[in-house]
């Protein structure tokens, strides 16, 4: 009996007939996938991504070339007899209290909101990356010092801080000063997110491999750790652009933002508040422009977060 080959007691299907064949084959020609390619594949399937991107693109176009969208000058030709007037064929959203065209003012105010948003975001991202990167990567006393500094800035709600700064610099109210006032207190959020991510990434095997190869610590940080930790920062950045636009509008609404001579949505909303009863259009339309823009940035941030974070994807 031992001379005979063992008889087959279980039926074993040929490999081609099993689902294993799908796992077993390696498509050599396929492009290697990574986080960004996966994220892009996920994002482009979602309608929210396209809606928010198109709106943001439109807002950028309006900010860059306002004259393509309206031929009515925003401030000249304001006639007081049109004060709070109803919409007409040429002035589709009606008139402000000063008799200016509401639509034209919204169009021309776009660049103000967008520039504040962009300057604040660049500032918070640069400061946040610097603080978060060194605190998370080097740890120790440097982390303690940088994190405590972040705690202090984080403990003052940034709009309140901006109110104080703008009160002090009441003589220099312009887009740059207001962006600085918001950005200087808004960066710890970015720094915290990056610090946590870097602390996770720096223990990876590929970092250890680079160390074993003798790559310098700083080079590892720039070449391997930072690029692999940047995804959550991008999410925070997109959302904070919307938040910065809201902050500018809030400060202008409170009267410590941009001067009345600068066209901005916040200023227009602020000027219209006393006429809510008689001329709601002067308040509703700038608010709508503001809200839609902010909504687009926050929506884009959400989509990017879902695409970059598999855990968030599972919860969807």
């Amino acid at each position: 009996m031992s001379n005979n080959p063992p008889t087959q007691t279980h039926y074993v299907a040929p490999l081609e007939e099993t689902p294993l064949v799908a796992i077993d084959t390696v498509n050599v020609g396929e492009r290697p996938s990574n986080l960004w390619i996966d994220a892009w594949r996920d994002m482009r399937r979602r309608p929210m991504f396209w809606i928010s991107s198109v709106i943001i693109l439109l807002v950028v176009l309006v900010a860059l070339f306002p004259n393509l969208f309206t031929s009515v000058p925003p401030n000249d030709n304001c006639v007081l007899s049109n004060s709070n007037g109803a919409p007409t064929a040429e002035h589709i959203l009606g008139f402000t209290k000063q008799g200016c065209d509401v639509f034209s003012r919204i169009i021309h105010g776009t660049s103000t909101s967008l520039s504040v948003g962009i300057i604040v975001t660049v500032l918070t991202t640069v400061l946040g990356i610097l603080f978060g990167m060194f605190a998370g990567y080097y740890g120790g006393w440097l982390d303690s010092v940088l994190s405590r500094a972040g705690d202090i800035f984080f403990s003052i709600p940034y709009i309140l801080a901006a109110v104080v700064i703008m009160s002090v610099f009441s003589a220099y109210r312009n887009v740059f000063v207001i962006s600085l006032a918001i950005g200087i207190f808004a960066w710890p959020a970015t720094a915290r997110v990056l610090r946590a991510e870097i602390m996770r990434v720096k223990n990876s095997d590929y970092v250890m491999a680079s160390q074993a190869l003798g790559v310098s610590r700083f080079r590892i940080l720039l070449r391997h750790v930072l690029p692999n930790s940047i995804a959550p920062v991008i999410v925070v950045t997109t959302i904070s652009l919307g938040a910065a636009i809201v902050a500018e509008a809030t400060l202008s609404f409170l009267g410590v933002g941009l001067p009345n001579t600068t066209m901005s949505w916040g200023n227009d909303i602020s000027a219209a508040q006393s006429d809510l009863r008689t001329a709601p259009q002067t308040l509703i339309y700038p608010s709508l422009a503001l809200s839609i823009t902010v909504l687009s940035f926050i929506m884009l941030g959400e989509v990017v977060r879902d695409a970059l974070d598999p855990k968030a994807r599972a919860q969807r």
Partner: protein
Amino acid sequence: MAGYILRRLLQAIPVLLGTTFLIYFMVFAMPGDPLLALFGDKTPSPALLESLRQQYHLDQPFIIQYFLYLGGIFHGDFGTSFSGEPVADILARTFPVTIRLAIMALIIEFVGGVLIGLVSGLRKGKLFDASALVVSLIFISLPIFVIAFVAQFIFGIQLGWARTTVSSGAPIQDLILPAFVLASITFAQIVRLTRASVIETQSLDFVRTAYGKGLSRRRIIPVHILRNSLIPVVTYAATDFGVLLVGATVTEGIFNVPGVGRTLYQAIVRGEGPTVVSFVTVMVLIYLVVNLVVDLLYGLLDPRIRYVK
């Protein structure tokens, strides 16, 4: 536990010193006359300037100025307002109103937000969940003053259900609309956090075990899922207390609620710099204390936190 409390209190000291120093530095280390800068295009009377100079000790070197000012704060001396009334007295008068408004808003956002978030999380992917997500996104994007004006316009002017401004004494029924507006800013975040947390908790082993041993959903949902999902929600509410403070400033200003926020709002709008600085300092101190208390409560509620450095 005692070690945990001590550690948290010690950690709070540098932050407290740092924040007050930062505010003081921003205001009084500027070139030129900081007091004149604070008044913008107004000209304060010489007597007022003199009293402010004494209050902020501007005749001393900078570091001594700061410590004298800090000493004053610890004695409850927050300076005097533009009209000459001590800030501490204004606080005593306006604080109860703000507390009443804040408690109403907190109840609305917690009860509403947690309920909607729970239902959303349990019915993930269904119509209710999808619409809750979209609506919460819209609320997150709307600036508080836009929500306030829209609410004023719809409920106050068009429907006439509520008064557009609060009458003197701030009775509860007048505060309902402002409380809803104030609640709306953090409400959406609470919905989303609760939802995410419920979805995560639902997949944990102890919930599966509870289902496995045959417990009813009526018991599992409130006891196992909800209670364990609330920790991140409470954390969020504490860190976002700052947003609530700013929101209270705008809401109280628009609805004319006679609270701390409106006092700050009016001082900002009128360009009364020194009053603004005093009130912002007070609000930052409140914010720090609230966060500290919540941190200490955590150590009590969740033993794991006590041991994490």
